[in-house]
């Protein structure tokens, strides 16, 4: 087995990297794939909380790298799915505790055992980001449809190009079709126009995401909500399927009429 390493990065904080890592991992695992997600945000770990696995952490990423435990011991299995594991970040250390070459070594070992390794990059473009992308086969760049997030995504894409990490794929998160129709939000076309990269997913704004994160129950587990479906679609596109983009305009007639009157 040779697993693929996918890193999710954004530059700007708060655009939804951690939530997406959790949900894309869950979605991949729900298709029977063997998935390990790694929290790259050493010192500010969150992925364990979003996945609801916080109370099961014994060893973490830094323990593996510094040889205090075996890789297997740091992989927390998510019991809701057959093959989903989390390697949590250390909370008491910082980004300098590991180096890009440590990540490459770790991922090369993991590749033998799983289909997918999903890495959650910290915000910023410094050491933590460099660690997170060092081993990546693909990088998904996350942005929100707002000017500052798009600006940071552009910078990150530029850095990825300079590091010859191959073409980045774009995920647009917290997309609000109604606001776009009113002309108050950048449209998908506006964002793609500026960034000129391939699109791999659009996730609509959905308050269920916050509820799910607080409960530690990723949305992609039930798959009824729009955002949950969007994550499922991204995971299928990662697996090489052609999945059409969600229709945001086909809301019910009443909403459309109301929207138009404004």
């Amino acid at each position, binding site marked *: 087995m040779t697993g693929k390493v996918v890193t999710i990065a954004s530059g700007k904080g708060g655009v939804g990297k951690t939530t997406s890592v959790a949900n894309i991992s869950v979605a991949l695992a729900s298709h029977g794939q063997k998935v390990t997600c790694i929290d790259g945000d050493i010192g500010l770990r969150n992925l364990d909380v979003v996945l609801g696995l916080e109370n099961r952490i014994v060893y973490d990423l830094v323990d593996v790298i510094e040889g205090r435990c075996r890789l297997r011991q740091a992989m927390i299995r998510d019991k809701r799915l057959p093959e989903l594991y989390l390697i949590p970040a250390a909370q008491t250390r910082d980004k300098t505790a590991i*180096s890009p070459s440590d990540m490459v070594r770790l991922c090369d070992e993991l590749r033998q055992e799983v289909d997918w390794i999903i890495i959650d990059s910290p915000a910023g473009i410094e050491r933590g980001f460099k660690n997170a992308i060092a081993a990546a086969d693909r990088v998904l760049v996350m942005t929100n449809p707002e000017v500052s997030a798009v600006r940071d995504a552009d910078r990150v894409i530029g850095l990825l190009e300079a590091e*010859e990490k191959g073409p980045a794929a774009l995920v647009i998160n917290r997309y609000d079709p109604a606001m776009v129709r009113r002309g108050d939000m950048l449209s998908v076309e506006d964002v793609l126009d*500026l960034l*000129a990269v391939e699109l791999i997913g659009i996730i609509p704004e959905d308050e269920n995401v916050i509820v799910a994160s607080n409960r530690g129950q990723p949305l992609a587990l039930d798959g009824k909500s729009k955002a949950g479906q969007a994550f499922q679609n991204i995971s299928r596109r990662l697996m090489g399927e052609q999945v059409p983009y969600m229709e945001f305009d086909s809301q019910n007639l009443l909403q459309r009429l109301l929207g138009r009157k404004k």
Partner: protein
Amino acid sequence: MDKTPSFIQIKGIRDGLLVTLDGAAWPELETIFVKNVDERSSFFQGARVALNVGAIELRVAELSALRDQLSERGIALWAVLSESSVTETTAQNLGLATRLTKPHPVDVRDAVEGLPENSSKWIKGPLRSGGRVLFEGNVVVMGDVNPGAEIVAGGSVIVWGRLRGVVHAGAQGDEKAVVCALELAPTQLRIAGDIAVSPKKQGKNQPEVASLKDGQLVAEPWQDLTGR
């Protein structure tokens, strides 16, 4: 320096250490350098290093590997000097300096006057946020120049795409320099000593040329200039 033969030379300079590698092929030189660092880690700890690699061609993978190895040892690589244009481009892509100090403005001006008129730098776009191009002659970009990117040219700037970043043409005082783009909407536009900010968009986008006329920065549609 008895243990290190002529492959590696280390010199203290104002901005840290200047390490010159020479006399062998790349992987060996890298090994020699890293070994040298490991042997004298207390000397190198926390150092800022500029590297002179002579004519050796380095690709991004090689240079970034070295940079990572050095940073693991607490050494910051901040500049790479080379006679090879491949290595220089690589270093620039990785955000490393390729000169030890910025040339004095007067020296640059002399250099520009010595340049043939058609000396241009060709850049394949898009030039993204954080990207910076500094060139004594003209700059041509095939693709967009995104907000957060910066072009400083001694001569004119031509953008075959949307220009939304900061652009400075005639940076050494050439008032005849122009800036043209398929869509001229820079964050800030400077020609010689004049600065202008794009007005808010009105009407359809069309190719435009910005130039200095009687000390005023003006932008005119391309068609008006060629249609005469």
